[in-house]
């Protein structure tokens, strides 16, 4: 960080600052609105810190380059939006399977397909979770402010490094292009996590064996070029990385990459709570929409309505435990506003069950959900 003090920053700019603070040294990308600023700023900033910026020929190649850079030891990131996110999915699955730490930023715009390139949406919530094929778990974080785009990018890198997994930073056009006054140093020196490196003799290294450091279920990752010889493949593999069709070995590997994330659901869960203690109606929101929800809850309270906000920051794995607690509050309703046809409302409904009505509030045509829309829904539920 060269600059201190208050700055007027865009969410996309703050994301790059966060990535650099987390130790980003490699970015590969491809231009796509509304994420392009991230690539542009990386092309300027990375060479200044001895890093590498690569513009690839498409999103498939950018994601492949990020996997390669990470295996060579660099903290690596790419950024894109809906159509590009779709193209990245195969290699995103490769990163999950081969346990390659990396951060994929998706600044959501209206889809499907080309959609509305300059308008905000939150339609990639399920694509972020299930966009690639096969059983896998993935960590998806969603910032609501420019400051949080900064801090959460650091968090994304830390989780990626610690758990040897791709992490998706799911922004939306509202946050990506929003300009806010932020003082990045106010976040203090945030902890930065580096991946575990092998400590065993080189010939005994198992790239997919048990952990040797902090975590027993996350194997250490040597960087190519450090003298460790190992095999990386998208095929189901054993502890030494060699492909296998042995069902026992395969099952062990698949369960481990799923469990290393699923078993940490509660520690990965991040959320912000506003006026939740005595709430009778709770709004569950995330990303840019949570900004409107915050205002709506404040306005409702001013009118004497007991509304609360549960702002979900870790979208996936789903914060099951926290959401389940809403069941015990005797709520009149849970409202889930999102700029899609109703994606995140599905797991919320699954967990709330018949404890209270779960009401979706949706907009899909590029217009953000306004505080008054949510306030109206709150009043309707009382």
């Amino acid at each position, binding site marked *: 960080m060269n600059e201190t003090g208050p700055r007027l920053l865009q969410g996309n700019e703050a994301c790059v600052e966060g990535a650099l603070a987390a130790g980003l040294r490699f970015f590969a990308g491809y*231009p796509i609105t509304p994420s*392009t600023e991230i690539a542009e700023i990386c*092309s*300027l900033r990375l060479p200044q810190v001895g890093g590498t910026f690569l*513009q690839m020929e*498409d999103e498939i190649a950018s994601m492949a380059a990020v996997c390669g850079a990470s295996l060579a030891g660099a903290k690596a990131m790419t950024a894109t939006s809906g159509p590009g996110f779709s*193209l990245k999915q195969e290699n995103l699955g490769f990163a999950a399977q081969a346990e390659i730490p990396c951060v994929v930023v998706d600044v959501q715009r209206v889809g499907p397909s*080309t959609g509305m390139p300059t308008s905000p949406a939150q339609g990639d919530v399920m694509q972020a979770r299930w966009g690639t094929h096969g059983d896998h778990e993935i960590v998806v974080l969603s910032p609501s402010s420019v400051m949080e785009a900064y801090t959460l990018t650091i968090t994304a890198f830390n989780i990626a490094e610690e758990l040897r997994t791709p992490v998706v930073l799911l922004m939306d056009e509202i946050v990506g292009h929003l300009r806010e006054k932020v003082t990045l140093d106010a976040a203090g020196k945030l902890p930065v996590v580096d991946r575990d490196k092998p400590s065993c003799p080189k010939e005994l290294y198992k790239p997919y064996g048990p952990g040797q450091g902090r975590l027993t279920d996350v194997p250490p990752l040597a960087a190519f070029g450090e003298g460790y010889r190992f095999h990386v493949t998208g095929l189901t593999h054993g502890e030494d990385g060699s492909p296998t069709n042995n069902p026992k070995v395969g099952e062990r590997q698949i369960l481990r990459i799923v469990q290393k994330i699923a078993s940490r659901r509660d520690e990965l869960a991040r959320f912000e709570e506003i006026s939740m203690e005595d709430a009778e109606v709770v709004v569950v929101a995330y990303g840019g929409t949570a900004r409107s929800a915050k205002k709506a809850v404040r306005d409702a309270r001013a009118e004497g309505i007991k509304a609360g906000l549960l702002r979900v920051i870790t979208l996936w794995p789903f914060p099951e435990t926290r959401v389940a607690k809403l069941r015990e509050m005797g709520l009149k309703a849970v409202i889930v506003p999102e700029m899609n046809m109703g994606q995140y409302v599905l797991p919320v409904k699954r967990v709330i069950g018949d404890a209270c009505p779960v009401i979706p509030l949706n907009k899909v045509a590029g217009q953000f959900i306004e505080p008054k829309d949510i306030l109206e829904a709150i009043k309707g539920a009382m």
Partner: protein
Amino acid sequence: MASLKELSAVPEVLASGHRLCAGCGAPIVVRQILRGAKAPVVVTNATGCLEVSTSVYPYSSWNSPWVHTAFECAGATASGVEAAYRSLKKQGKVDKEIKFVAFGGDGGTYDIGFQALSGAMERNHNLVYVCYDNGAYMNTGIQRSSATPKGADTTTSPVGKVSTGKRENRKDLTKIMAAHGIPYAAQVSPAHWNDLYQKAEKAFSAGGAAFINAIAPCPRGWRCDSKDTIEMCRLAVDTCFWPLYEIVEGKVRVTYKPRVKRPVVDFLKPQGRFRHLFQPGNEGLLEEIQKDVDRNWERLLAEEALSN
């Protein structure tokens, strides 16, 4: 040879009133190319400035059927359209002659659409693929592409204290397409309209896959005056930065040889994207660019000599 009078009598496929910028090279290329079709055309468009600016709902600038799919798919989409025509013809459901053409910018052609384009060329579909090459991703805000000339300032090859713009060479796409063994490949410039028209005619009657690469200045990205578009095309040709040639069944023919080959700086100087090259200390880079141009030109002439 056609006269301007004859050419101006050909009905327009791309209508006026589109939203492309003043001075944009793309619509000039499209209008000149389509004069060579001599039959109804079906247009496929890759994502890019041309696509977004000619299809603002509920309007269309196209007096023809027009298809846009995903960014990387123009080659594949055009292949499908042409294959459907062949099938319908075989079934006796269509008997009139229709020509197929695809337009893509350099980003959609040299980079992300390269794979699909290569497939279309290799399968030798009876279509003409036209790249309007403005040397960067102009639609998303001037990011470098593999068609961006060495030394150009773009938002992802920014010029600063250390960087002097894009370091890599331009990809020679016309030659790569010709290397597919297709019946026709050519490079054209809107400033040389008669040369362009004749090549378009040949491409449309090649009987198989044809590729045309057209230089198409972008005043926004090139940082040149919008009134100088045609002049920039002319300078690109006269400096041999953008030679005009065709490759027919593997034989190279240079269709225009400037009487006086002007130094490449004549082409670079009016463009703001190369301004930094004229600051002290960057003389070496200018020399390097000149050497690249000279080498490519000499090689092209040698290839022509070998073809005879």
